[in-house]
């Protein structure tokens, strides 16, 4: 079965220097199990190919059913150095929520 991440989770993204942080929060425990299982560091790195040029790190926050990702080398230098229209990665959480996941 294919589901879109935006139907089971919400989130927010921002900048930490040249890294982008993306927090994804599931609406319920069922959703949290799905994001915990499917949103691995490798999967996120591959999804953001051509955007994220560094290491992806993931942390679990089961207390609020969330995962936090840090995508290094992603914002074109970050801050005022970046030439990107979205220099702070504000729209990257939305980009991730557009992902389709094939769940068993």
């Amino acid at each position: 079965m294919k589901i879109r991440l935006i139907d089971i989770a919400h989130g927010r993204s921002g900048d930490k220097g040249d890294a982008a942080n993306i927090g994804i929060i599931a609406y319920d425990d069922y959703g949290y199990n799905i994001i915990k299982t499917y949103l691995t560091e490798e999967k996120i790195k591959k999804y953001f190919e051509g955007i994220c040029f560094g290491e992806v790190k993931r942390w679990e926050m089961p207390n609020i059913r969330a995962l936090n990702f840090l995508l290094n080398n992603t914002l074109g230098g970050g801050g005022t150095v970046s030439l990107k229209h979205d220099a702070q990665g504000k729209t990257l959480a939305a980009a991730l929520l557009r992902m389709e996941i094939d769940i068993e």
Partner: protein
Amino acid sequence: MKDKIRIASGQGFWGDLIEAPYWQVTKGDIDYLVMDYLAEVTMSILQKQKNKNPFAGFAKDIPGLMRRILPFCTRKNIKVITNGGGVNPEACAKEVLNVAKELGLKKLKVAIVVGDDIFSRINELVSNGHPLKNMDTGEPVSIIKDKLLSANVYFGAFPIVEALKLGADIVITGRTTDTGLTLAPMIYEFGWNEKDFDLLAAGTIAGHILECGAQASGGNFLGDWQSIENFAEIGFPIAEAFPDGKVIITKHESLGGRVSFETVAEQLVYEIGDPKNYITPDCVADFTSIKLEDMGNNRVMVYDIKGLDATEFYKVSCSFMDGYSSSASLTYSWPQALTKAKAADKILRQRLENLGLKFDEIRTEFIGYNSCHGPLAKEMDEDLINEIMMRVAVRSSDFNSVERFGKEIAPLILTGPPAVTGFAGGRPKPSEVVAYWPALISKKVVVPQVKMMEL
């Protein structure tokens, strides 16, 4: 000791909703108004202003805002805490005292926190064995010493606590952490000490929730945003704090927005790294310990928070000159809007190359197509695209290259693909790129100072 205090967020950044702090002091009861004005880039802008004018270098909005809110603050005994003093808290405080005088106030104590500005001490610190290595690259600050624009240490809550103990009605600081602004009144009112790490972490997390203003109360909410009521008069968050470290996040009832599990959770994950180690000058907070309980009626309880010892270092934020940049845009309409925009980009790049200009980076994005999600943007049927804005940005250490880039945009209108518009306002001028240099410094060599200024 009070059994509860209400701390209200008034600004999430310099440029935030101007009415918000006015609503916070007029639309309900609060004890403290806290306002964060400083982003990393802000400090360098303020330093440049101060270099030109010794009476500048702080958030200029503050005196005007004080004129509107001071009468309410004095009558309702609301204290104001802000880091909008930037690189010149003293000049800011003087202006606030002038405003108070003009308003006919008889008594006002304004405290400033200084000592964070180590720009003039860099040589001394480096030669005394503090290399201020870049936290990302490990390089010593000496390699950019000649290009430095500003250098500020992030202080925490305790200097503000000292100011409150001295009876300050208003506390104006330089570079203080956003979270410290909210934590300070809790420490002061509830008598917490420097080793109460769980309590300090609780106040720090309340500060994190408040520091981006309405982002915790329905603004920029990626969940069910359509159902948020009255964005026009959105209520900024208020932290109702208790002596045991419990905090209830809420907002004034008559204002719009929403405080729910989801809106608060979104702010909790904003701009964090390792959630178990959220490092501030006051403590290390564990975001995975937070319990959130949606109590309904725009009230969310935040409790059970754990924290650890603060580190021995302050974070330092330096900024330095790192070349020039410029950006420009043109809009192409149907038919073949995207194809034409891409062709124009190719022509422009060919011309820049033919001129032998030097750039570190040229970046083109097509607004309406891929400027947000880059290669993740989905293909579109071009006949359905009404228009595309081509945005080109360049960066270079060579001023002349960036300046010439600005002269190559408008010519595309008459010398490139058709049905193009949107070039107004003249040639874009090169702007200075201010880069950011994060470092650490031992807490032993930087001492915060609190000064009281009175009417």
